[in-house]
Structure formats: C-alpha cells, structure tokens
C-alpha cells in the first residue's frame, strides 16, 4: 500500500508539472483514488484536511476581493509609474517594491492578479515591453511573499501547521533576508533590462498628467474597505497576543468586510477562488495518505541518514531540496509533502527549533521563481499575458528564473549559516 500511495502522489505531481489537466482536478482525483483504494480511510481523509489553511486563504480572498473595487491597487501602480519619472531603473525598483509589499501582506497570487493587468497598461502608455516588467513582478511577488506568514501559500501552510510559529516570527526571521534578496535580484534584473525599459520622455510626461486617484474618488466603501484590510493586517501582527489563529483573524476580517463593505453577499463570495481551495483539499488528503502509510517517516529517516543527523546539513538540504522540488513540480504540493517530513526531523516542546522551518519556507518560496510552473503566481501571470496576446514561453521564464533562484538561495544559505545556525 505504501508503493500505491507513492505512485499516486508522484503521478499527480508529474501531471501537475506538465499542466495537461487542471491541477485541482488532478489533486482531487489523487485524493479520491487514495480514499477508494484504502490508502487512507474516510475519517483519516477528513482529518487530514487543514481547515486553518483553507480558512486563512478564503478569508484573505474575500478581504482582497472586496478591497479591489476601491481602485487602491491601481492607484499604487500608477503612482509608481509617475514616481519613476521615465527612469527604467526607478520603474523596476518601484514596481518590485510595490509587488513585494502587496505580496507580503495580501498574498503573492493576489498581488500578481492585481498588478499585472495594470502593468500591461503602463507598459503600453510608456511604450516599453511589458514582459520584462511582468517578470520583475513575478520574481518580486515570490520573494516578497516569503517575508510573512500570509505572503505565499508555502508559508501559509507552514504557519498554520506549526503552532509555535507566529506571524511576527515569520517577519523577524524571513523579512530581512527577503528584503536583501529582493533588492539584489531587482538590481540584477534592472541592469539586464535597462535597454528594453528606456522610456521616451514624452511618454513619461503623459503619465505624469494622469490623475491616479480618480477611480478611488468614484468608488464606494473605500475608507471602510481599507480600514478593514489594515485592521486585519494589524491583527495578524497581534494574533499571538490576542490568542487568535491566523485563520480566525482572516475570517473575522472577511466577516467584518462583508458586513460593512458588501451590498451583495452572493457576489462578494464569488471572490473566493474555489478551485484553489479544492486543490488544497486534494493535496492535504494525498499527503495524509502518505503519512498514514509511513512514507513521510521513511523520507525523514532517509534525510537524517544522508545528513548524518547534522543540524546544519539537514537545514541546507531542506533549503536546496525544497527549492529543487518546487522548481520541478509546484511549491504548494511540495511543501504539503515536506511539512510532515520537517516536523519529524524537528525537535518539539521546549527545545523547539525553528531553523528547519525557515529553510523550508525560504527554499519553497524562492524555488517558486525557478520555473513557470513552480508557483501559482507564475502560472497566474502567464495566464494574464496569454489573454493579453503577449505570451511568455517556458524557456524565456527559465532564463530569468534559474539565475534569480540561484542568487536567492545563495543569499538564503548565507543568512541561515550566519544568523540561524
């Protein structure tokens, strides 16, 4: 039965990477197969679903979905273009900064869906190629999302699975290294794209004349929506003091948002990306099946054998292994499978050691930049570009993704060795 569990999981991962069939269908099919074949029993399958992760995701989807009509995100993107004042270097850094910040405090998939369409417009108005700007944003979203518990799906899963880790712990341990990585990588990309992003002066002047706040003035519930969004982010910082799980914070924020800033609850709930939630459900059940059949224990034992039980070696193997695995498949299923492995390796209780969790977060999130299929944000950006008739090929993404990932992992390695190990 252990081999059946492995076979189902590996085949599903491979098919997800190939993108022939929607990943949600595959994850649910894999979960159903495991349940039908008896890899995991029905009670086990239901217990394997991490409802906290689903609650956190659904809550943030509602909050961001109801904030989006206020036009605040469009305002930010337009201000960035204006502040760049025609300088390609400034434009790249400002767009990377805004995307990184939105990713950290909303989540990177949402940030990409908000920022890429407006970037296509900006590129058109500035008469520059959109693809370099979108690539900068995708990379920034994966790095920026690394900084917080809610920024990137791997962190959401780790944060909800490991109760000892708070929102603040993520920021203290991951935000500095994410910031350094973001600045380094953005500088490299700005240099690489300096010729493609030269803005004609008359175009910069035209952008300067735009009134970026116009949509916000016409929108309703701007103040209420922003107050709830900022209040929720503040509550994330304080969730340990408030004795509230991040999922409870997100769902409470979503409920307040529905009460004060949504006229039509049916339409508001359409903002929830059900396919993403069901993708997670399928994954959790499959990983539950792997755990049930002892696969996770065997992987953890194998990892301990390879590294000889050395804390440093284990941490670095997790970091680079998570990045490699995420690059090949998708960082969400890979993290789902790795969480119980790292949990087995990590001491718990009073001797709780968080370094392996930071290695997993950094590896999975940074590894999300390696290939077009490595992170949900990448796939979402490619989808928007496709619909805009400006497709990006797998190879073109790879040409940026691989060097960015290697640089990011080198910084992460140095950070872990110097500050964490």
């Amino acid at each position: 039965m252990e081999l059946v569990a492995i076979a189902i999981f590996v085949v599903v991962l491979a098919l997800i990477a190939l993108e022939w069939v929607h990943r949600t269908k595959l994850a649910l099919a894999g979960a159903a197969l495991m349940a039908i074949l008896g890899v995991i029993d029905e009670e086990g399958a239901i217990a394997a679903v991490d409802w906290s992760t689903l609650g956190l995701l659904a809550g943030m989807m509602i909050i961001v979905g109801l904030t989006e009509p206020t036009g605040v995100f469009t305002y930010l993107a337009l201000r960035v273009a204006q502040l760049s004042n025609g300088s390609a270097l400034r434009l790249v850094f400002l767009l990377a900064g805004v995307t990184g910040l939105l990713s950290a405090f909303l989540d990177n998939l949402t940030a990409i869906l908000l920022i890429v369409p407006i970037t296509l417009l900006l590129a058109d108005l500035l008469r520059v190629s959109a693809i370099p700007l979108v690539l900068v944003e995708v990379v920034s979203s994966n790095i920026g999302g690394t900084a917080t518990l809610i920024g990137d799906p791997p962190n959401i899963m780790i944060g909800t699975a490991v109760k000892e880790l708070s929102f603040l712990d993520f920021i203290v341990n991951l935000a500095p290294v994410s910031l350094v990585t973001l600045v380094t990588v953005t500088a490299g990309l700005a240099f690489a794209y300096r010729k493609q992003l030269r803005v004609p002066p008359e175009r910069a002047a035209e952008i300067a004349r735009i009134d970026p706040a116009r949509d916000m003035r016409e929108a309703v519930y701007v103040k209420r929506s922003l107050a709830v969004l900022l209040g929720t982010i503040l509550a994330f910082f304080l969730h340990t003091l408030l004795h509230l799980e991040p999922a409870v914070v997100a769902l409470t924020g979503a409920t307040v948002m529905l009460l004060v800033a949504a006229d039509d609850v049916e339409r508001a709930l359409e903002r929830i990306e059900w396919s993403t939630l069901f993708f997670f459900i399928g994954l959790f059940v499959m990983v539950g099946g792997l755990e049930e059949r002892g696969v996770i224990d065997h992987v953890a034992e194998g990892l301990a054998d390879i590294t000889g039980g050395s804390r440093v070696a284990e941490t670095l193997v997790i970091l680079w292994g998570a990045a490699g695995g995420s690059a090949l498949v998708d960082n969400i299923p890979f993290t789902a499978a790795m969480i119980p492995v790292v949990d087995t390796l990590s001491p718990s209780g009073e001797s709780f050691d968080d370094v392996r969790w930071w290695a997993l977060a950094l590896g999975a999130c940074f590894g999300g930049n390696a290939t077009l299929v490595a992170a949900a944000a990448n796939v979402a950006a490619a989808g928007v570009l496709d619909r805009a008739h400006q497709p990006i090929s797998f190879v073109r993404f790879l040409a940026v993704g691989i060097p960015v990932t290697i640089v990011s992992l080198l910084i992460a390695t140095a950070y872990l060795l110097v500050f964490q190990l």
Partner: protein
Amino acid sequence: MTLRDITLVPASVPATATFREAATALRDSGLPAIAVLDAEGHVEGLFTDIDLLEGLFPAYLGELKHTSFLPDDALTERALEAADERVTEHMRKARELEIETSTAHAAERFLHCEEGALPVVGDDDRFVGMLPRAEFSLAMLRRRTGS
C-alpha cells in the same frame, strides 16, 4: 412552430473579409452579430459587436477594472493595427441553431448565451440567416397576441 416560421436576416461576411469590412457589414446589418462563412457557405464563426469592441482596444483592457484616469486619446493605436487583420482573428466560435429547432429551444439558447443574434443553418448545414434575439422575441409575442 420552428425557426422556419420566423424571418431570418442573411447577414454574413466571408472568412476572407478584413476586420474593417466585417465591422462595416455588422453596422449595415443593424444586428449585434453576423456570421462568418467559409467558401461553401458553412458557418465558420460569429462576429459580434463585443468582438468589434475588443478588436479596437488592447486585449488586456478586459482585465482592468479601473480606467477612468485614462486620457481620451489613450489606447487608440490598436484600432489602426486591427483594421486590416482578418475577421477570423477576431471572430468567436458559433453555436448554430438548426432551421427545424423549436422556438422553446431557441429561447433557452438565447437565455444561456451573451450573443444577441445566433446563426441558423439549413438541413445541408449551410447558413440560412441570423436570428436576432429581439426579432425572435417580437415574433413570439406577435404569435401569442395575434398582432
């Protein structure tokens, strides 16, 4: 009663037509959609007023939700490029109605699609004419009220 009993409008363009020619034909027909036909008279696609609008502006415009800040002359270059493109690059897949289709079925199809007119094909699968939603509805009303 079937679609054979309703007046259809023979509004179409050949698949070789340009975007500009299709736009003119659409306007001249007064319909929200016209058929795009192959050389044998089979329906290859449907060109609607939405396709016309989408063709005139960059494809990403539909992804945006806030654009009131744009100046009047922004994003107009796309129309120049589109004018000489083939209509087949802008048409959508057509869901045809058969001439013997019942009016109830046609009504159900209209309720589940965004196109304001649908192409009707004959027994030989060749285009017969466009069935405009408004004309169809009026025909149904006339039939029931007798006026």
